[in-house]
């Protein structure tokens, strides 16, 4: 469970460049809830995720994860509760380490890292199994450098890495946006499968309205740093992409949907 209370994030406060990225967000995710987040550029989607992960410090408000106030905790310390996949497939893994070394690193997320071997026979076997479940035939390339893989393969592995160690919340920041359509589809399906099987509380930012409705159990829309739409259950089931676009237009005061970053597909 995760709850965000009256969160405010302001970049460059007190300067001419001051920008209120998040202007009072209250949001509670129940255990195993899978929330998709939409909104135009600058709506505060990524900032919300960054604040939960600890990358940006809020101006006010607090963040609780699993009943514990983590507002002042450093990202590395918070990582024991927070698993993440970034938009850039290259950001979530180390190109120079092998596939299994990357996985071993993620396996120990939140645990105390000692001087024991990172790749014991037992752990190797378990990691191999997890990779085999992907069906990408990567289990035979465990010793290959991560840098040899395609963006899609790396993103799929990043997702597996995020689910290796226990986490109370999984943050996905447009993690399919940089992939080709086929791989994006694969990673989206994999996301749904892993989130469901691990019963992960998940917050997923997406640019695709279709994806926002297809995946997850609840959808929120952000606009100018606030939650302007929050739908779940029946209401969400009956929502169409057109309906969402209409909502979006109304939120923006009738302005045309000229934001090319917001795809309907």
């Amino acid at each position: 469970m995760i709850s965000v209370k009256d969160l405010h994030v302001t970049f460059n406060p007190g300067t001419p460049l001051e920008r209120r990225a998040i202007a009072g967000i209250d949001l509670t995710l129940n255990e195993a809830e899978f929330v998709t987040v939409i909104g135009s550029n600058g709506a505060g989607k990524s900032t919300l995720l960054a604040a939960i992960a600890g990358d940006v410090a809020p101006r006010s408000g607090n963040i609780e994860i699993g009943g514990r106030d983590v507002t002042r905790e450093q990202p590395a310390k918070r990582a024991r509760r927070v698993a993440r996949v970034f938009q850039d497939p290259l950001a979530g893994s180390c190109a120079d380490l092998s596939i299994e070394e990357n996985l071993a690193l993620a396996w120990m997320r939140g645990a105390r890292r000692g001087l024991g071997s990172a790749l014991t026979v037992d752990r190797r076997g378990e990691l191999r199994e997890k990779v085999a479940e992907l069906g990408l035939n990567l289990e035979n390339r465990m010793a290959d450098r991560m840098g040899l893989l395609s963006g899609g393969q790396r993103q799929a592995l990043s997702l597996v890495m995020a689910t290796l160690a226990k986490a109370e919340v999984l943050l996905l920041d447009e993690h399919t946006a940089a992939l080709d359509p086929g791989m994006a589809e694969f990673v989206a399906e994999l996301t749904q499968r892993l989130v469901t099987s691990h019963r992960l509380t998940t917050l997923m930012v997406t640019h695709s309205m279709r994806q926002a409705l297809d995946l997850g159990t609840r959808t929120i829309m952000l606009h100018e740093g606030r939650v302007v739409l929050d739908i779940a259950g029946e209401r969400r089931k009956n929502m169409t992409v057109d309906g969402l676009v209409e909502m979006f237009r109304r939120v923006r005061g009738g302005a045309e949907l000229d934001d090319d970053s917001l795809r309907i597909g």
Partner: protein
Amino acid sequence: MSAIAFWGAVELGLVYGFVALGVFLAFRVLDFPDLTVDGSFPLGAATAAVAITAGWNPWLACLIAALSGAACGLVTAFLNVRFGILNLLASILTMIALFSVNLRVMGRPNMAVLNQDTVITPFYDLGLPDHLVRPAILAVLILIAVLLLARFLSSDFGLAMRAAGANPRMARANGVDVGGQIYVGMALSNALTGLGGALFAQISGFADVTSGVGTIVVGLASVIVGETLFRSRSMLIALFACVIGSVIYRVAVQLALSADLLYLNPSDLNLVTAVLVALALILPKLRAGKRVAR
């Protein structure tokens, strides 16, 4: 080149092998361009020289040299991690400060360690000629260092250090305290360099404040030579490559200096080294550039 000159070069290469391992750790593992070694190497030599001439056990002297080296690394890491001073500049500050510290440690610019018991002394009586005993003992010592370091870098902690250098954002997202890793890595890197300095003082029979000049370039040259000769994903082989690179570098320098046709003096060493390192850094880029042009 005579056999004695050859083995002398190997011996020096093995001593600087410790520096190469330290430089590898800083530059390659942590991605931290660290010039502290120019100060921690002579500091290691100075502390060992002072300790040994005061009658201390030479192994204890080595330990103290390594610890003092580690302290230098911690200072650089502190300036960088705690106050965000650019890594290169932080290391230069420490290096400059160490010049004065080293003079204080010895009380004079140089110091002889002749006719003293060193870590090598007990092995002179085993029947091998002296000029072979030194490389043999050093080879054993550096073998142990390489094995320990390889084991360390393949542990959970070592893997976290490699990630902290390669992709700090990803490391943080996986719960790695990147700042903490820099402290440990820099301490370890400069401890190895300090140990190299201590062995240098014992092998060559003196410690000198100016002996640190260019240590970083020599270390880097060794790492690059090793990497060029052994392209491998294995950490163990990469570490061995550094040591072998260091030995090859010294033998090559010895060859160049002993070949009269080249008109080189020993004083040309730094120029030759700098040119070699610059070439080693430029050549891969030129090759890559050609590939792109095609």
